[in-house]
């Protein structure tokens, strides 16, 4: 069973629909017993880093998510859910994340060219790092496939765990992985057939 962490942040309608489209009936839950029983977990999220991190901590589910990840259960953070995997975020002050991926989440405005708009919103192509094998998360897609992004902050100092980037002036972190913990900055549930294939690969990990 796949569980989506419900900690009151974000709209889970599209995500559950996209999973249903690949034959997965997800449990949307804030119950730590259900998360413990699940064989894989998705951590969603939209909004500001600090608010979401606080909501996750207030629900007590931060510990549950970290515990299940430590047991080797596949975990996928999406968008802000991916950013929460990092050590900390620098959106409106410094806020601790889950510390599952080393690095921090920083604003992209200072690093992208002045003429580029922020948020980085729209369809961008995934680039895979040259120096390592393609992540199993991308086994059903190819380099250059398009996915849909909406974000103003991105994971930094995480080269070792980066499994995909997207070029927007510099290369922005598009996906990370460490052991069974995965994070994607883009929205697979809004990235058409490519996104569904990424979700399918996660469900087979």
């Amino acid at each position, binding site marked *: 069973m796949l569980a989506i962490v419900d900690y009151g942040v974000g*709209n889970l309608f599209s995500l559950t629909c996209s999973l249903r489209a690949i034959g997965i009936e997800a449990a949307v839950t804030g119950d730590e017993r259900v998360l413990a029983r699940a064989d894989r977990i998705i951590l969603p999220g939209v909004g500001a880093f600090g608010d979401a991190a606080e909501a996750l901590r207030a629900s007590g589910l931060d510990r549950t998510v970290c515990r299940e990840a430590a047991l080797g259960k596949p975990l996928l953070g999406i968008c802000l859910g991916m950013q929460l995997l990092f050590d900390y975020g620098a959106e409106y002050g410094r806020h601790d994340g889950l510390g599952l991926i080393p690095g921090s989440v920083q604003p992209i405005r200072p690093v992208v060219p002045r003429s580029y708009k922020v948020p980085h919103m729209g*369809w961008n192509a995934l680039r895979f790092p040259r120096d390592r094998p393609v992540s199993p998360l991308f086994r059903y897609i190819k380099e250059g496939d398009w996915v849909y992004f909406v974000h103003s902050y991105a994971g930094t100092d995480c080269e070792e765990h980066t499994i995909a980037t997207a070029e*927007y002036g510099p290369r922005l972190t598009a996906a990370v992985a460490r052991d069974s913990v995965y994070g994607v900055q883009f929205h697979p549930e809004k990235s058409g057939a490519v996104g569904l294939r990424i979700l399918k690969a996660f469900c087979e990990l």
Partner: protein
Amino acid sequence: MITKRIIPCLDVRDGRVVKGINFQGLADVSSPVELAKFYSGCGADELVFYDITASAEGRALFTDILREAASSVFIPLTVGGGINTVDDFDRVLKCGADKVSVNSGAIRDPSLIPQAAKRYGDQCVVLSVDARRVDGQFRVFAKGGREDTGMDTIEWIRSGVKNGAGEIVLNSIDTDGVKGGFDLEMLQAVCDVVDVPVIASGGAGCIEDFVTLFRTLPKVDAGLAASIFHFGEVKIPELKRALAENGIPARL
């Protein structure tokens, strides 16, 4: 590099897709859900569902259709029409909308934009503006283009972005339905004053109009159209290929 976006717009009334010429003389085209699936399958980058229903029953039917479309189409969906309060945002976001576009509702109550932006984030709030030339000025029109508000389009958009609108749809009534190309002059004036994405609407008649749009105005992020897509006058895969051949980034 992000791609330029091609966005078919589905005007929905009483559960059916319609498209007016200069906002009058609506003609039935097809089922919204079927059309959404078709567009997603042939490479549309995003869809706009515009609710032009007046009645409460029609509104309930619209949210049913939105929910059904969002269950089967996995690209970004923007919803507009009849968005007057933050509760309206809530209603359509729960049914699978990713962005919500405000038009007359924000003219009546400009505080709608900052309220919604605070709750859902700037990226969720799209300011849609119907504008036409009056006395040498780009004037904002309300109520589906029927009512001159007397407001200046550039000022209205500038203040909308300042208050939290994360994207602008500029629909030129002067070029809408004429199929003679987008209103480049009006779009240029808007691009000069905002740094959020600008979606061009109104006037596209052929593939070349989109090529001209993105070549002339590189700051425009997306082109929106309705009937030329619905009636197959412009086929999205051919349009995308033409953009790519002209060096314009497109998702193929």
